[in-house]
């Protein structure tokens, strides 16, 4: 496994990234709070969490679709948050995004050929016949008929539209692709087609993925490493096999236990870790560990309600933010 290679240089590094959105009465939604992470070349990092945890916002910060409130995002050593205008635009070529909803992320009035050609035109890369050739080549790469370039999005199924979105993301030959819930709007039999396509493309073009999803079983399947987010913070990072076998944060454990396994025999023997209450508001997150209000092993008030646990190494290549992480496998 690659993780054993020493001193790898990350393709992307986020340091203390914060994103606050203004809310009513001068309050703010603390969507992402002091997140640091590394993404290495050629790997797939999965980012999971439930709705509202900040995972999509973090994806948009990384691709520079949203400006950070504070913190730094380094791509190949260059701090993107310091760049403006044309310089930033040139870096953006390297960072592309695939969106969840293949219905709303394609302009219904443009032909598929024009949709895929748009990034090429924006950067003035190819013109005329060579542009058309490249579009047809991209269609072929994602498994669509290259002569469909004159058709409109509505003539395609959901899975085919997602392929068009992938072709558009590939047009500029990016290094990092952030895929935000790319399969959750698709039918089960189509999901596997898209997952396999993403894996094939990664091999062929040496792509690096940040794969954002709520479904931990899909994320585990496609990722080398998995990051778990809760209420704007990363609470655990580990290898995708390790995180399932040996979770060190009680939230990860609860999330894992809640995912149904398609096997009645196994499913009947599993124990679900039920969480108390609901996800608190990100406008006014709980003090100390943000998870303490719902945690089955929290010790309140000290330390869980007044001391924020740092994201620190609990085992080799395995970090978690919990005061009692050693208890998680047994007590939760």
């Amino acid at each position, binding site marked *: 496994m690659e993780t054993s290679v020493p001193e790898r240089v990350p393709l992307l590094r986020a340091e203390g990234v914060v994103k606050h959105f203004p809310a009513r009465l001068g309050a703010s939604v603390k969507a992402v709070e002091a997140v640091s992470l590394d993404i290495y070349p050629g790997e797939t990092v999965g980012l999971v969490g439930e709705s509202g945890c900040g995972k999509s916002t973090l994806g948009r910060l990384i691709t520079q679709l949203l400006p950070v409130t504070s913190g730094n995002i380094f791509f190949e050593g260059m701090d993107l948050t310091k760049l403006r205008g044309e310089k930033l635009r040139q870096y953006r070529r390297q960072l592309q995004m695939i969106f969840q909803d293949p219905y709303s992320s394609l302009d219904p009035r443009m032909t598929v050929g024009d949709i895929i050609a748009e990034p090429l035109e924006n950067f003035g890369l190819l013109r005329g016949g060579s542009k058309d050739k490249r579009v047809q080549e991209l269609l072929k790469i994602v498994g669509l008929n290259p002569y469909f370039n004159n058709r409109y999005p509505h003539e395609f199924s959901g899975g085919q539209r997602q392929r068009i979105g992938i072709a558009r993301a590939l047009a500029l030959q990016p290094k990092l692709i952030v895929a935000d819930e790319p399969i959750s709007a698709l039918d089960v039999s189509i999901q*596997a087609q898209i997952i396999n396509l993403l894996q094939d493309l990664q091999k062929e073009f040496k792509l690096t993925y940040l794969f954002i999803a709520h479904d931990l079983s899909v994320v585990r399947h496609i990722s080398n490493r998995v990051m778990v987010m809760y209420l704007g913070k990363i609470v655990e990072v580990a290898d995708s096999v390790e995180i399932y076998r040996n979770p060190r944060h009680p939230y990860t454990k609860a999330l894992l236990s809640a995912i149904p396994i398609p096997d009645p025999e196994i499913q009947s023997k599993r124990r679900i870790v039920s969480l108390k209450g609901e996800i608190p508001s990100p406008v006014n997150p709980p003090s100390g560990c943000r998870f303490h209000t719902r945690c089955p092993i929290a010790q309140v008030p000290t330390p869980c309600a007044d001391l924020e646990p740092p994201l620190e190494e609990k085992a080799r290549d395995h970090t978690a933010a919990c005061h009692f992480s050693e208890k998680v496998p047994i007590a939760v």
Partner: protein
Amino acid sequence: MTAPVLQVKDLKTQFFTDDGVVQAVDGVSFDLYPGETLGIVGESGCGKSVTALSILRLIQRPGRIVAGQILFKGSDIVTLSEEEVREIRGKDIAMIFQDPLSSLNPVLKVGFQIEEAMEAHDKVSGKSALSRTIELLKQVRIPAAESRVNDYPFQFSGGMRQRAMIAMGLANAPSILIADEPTTALDVTVQAQILELLRDLNHDLNTSIMMITHNMGVVAGLCTRVLVMYAGRIVEQGPVEQIFKNPQHPYTWSLLRSIPRLDSDRHDRLLSIDGLPPDLIKPPAGCRFNPRCQFKIDRCRHDDPPLMDVGPDQEAACWVTMRRALSRNGDQRA
């Protein structure tokens, strides 16, 4: 064996659109037994929701039930008058939907809407309706039910709204609860809570549950029997343990291998089912799955397979499976 509480016989529901007749449900038959949890799985457009809506006669124009019987308590729901159906709907057979926010009226208090469901079928005094409503909210585990009864839907979270919908469904102690993708819009931890609630209610009240879902994991955790639907037909049915361990229809088999499992340690390539589900205006000849089937034989292209016995209580509609089963038994027809 006890008598079924509901029998669906050769149900055909079609939609008469400008583009042609959509054969959404095409000859579906099954029984539902008292206290049973029956799963209906399939992908969008396979006819699972239309089957459920047909049972409650909620099919709207341009759709229509064109053939078949739905037998409940000695009468055929298909031929009942609108008034008679209304007596059954919400009283004997209740239904909950995927999106609780759009199923609740935003300007009416949650408690009032549950009382309304009760009063539609029974004369209850205001006071006893309120206490019964609070009791129902407690039964679906809404905390501080006495005060939350006065909340509006927007004050409830997604999970609580679905609990309120379930409370409304249970208001008249129905014998059947049809749940159409009740957890699809919810987060996984909330989904787990709702499934646990449904399991307990099924156990405590002996209400039969028909669970309509695309999620094989949900079926594995809740149901005892399952129907697998594809392109308007049941392609396989049987006890849950058997279908998952020993699927006999190529569609069921492929579907189970196309989903990543949380408990698998290997990153094997997923099996993907090529192509798309067929257009139900012009479904393919023969077996409807044949254009996507990797096991098909010549017969599949022109001859439509019926559901055939393939194991104890297990049936599948597949010629290849049938031939294998016959040759195992040394039958000449194989």
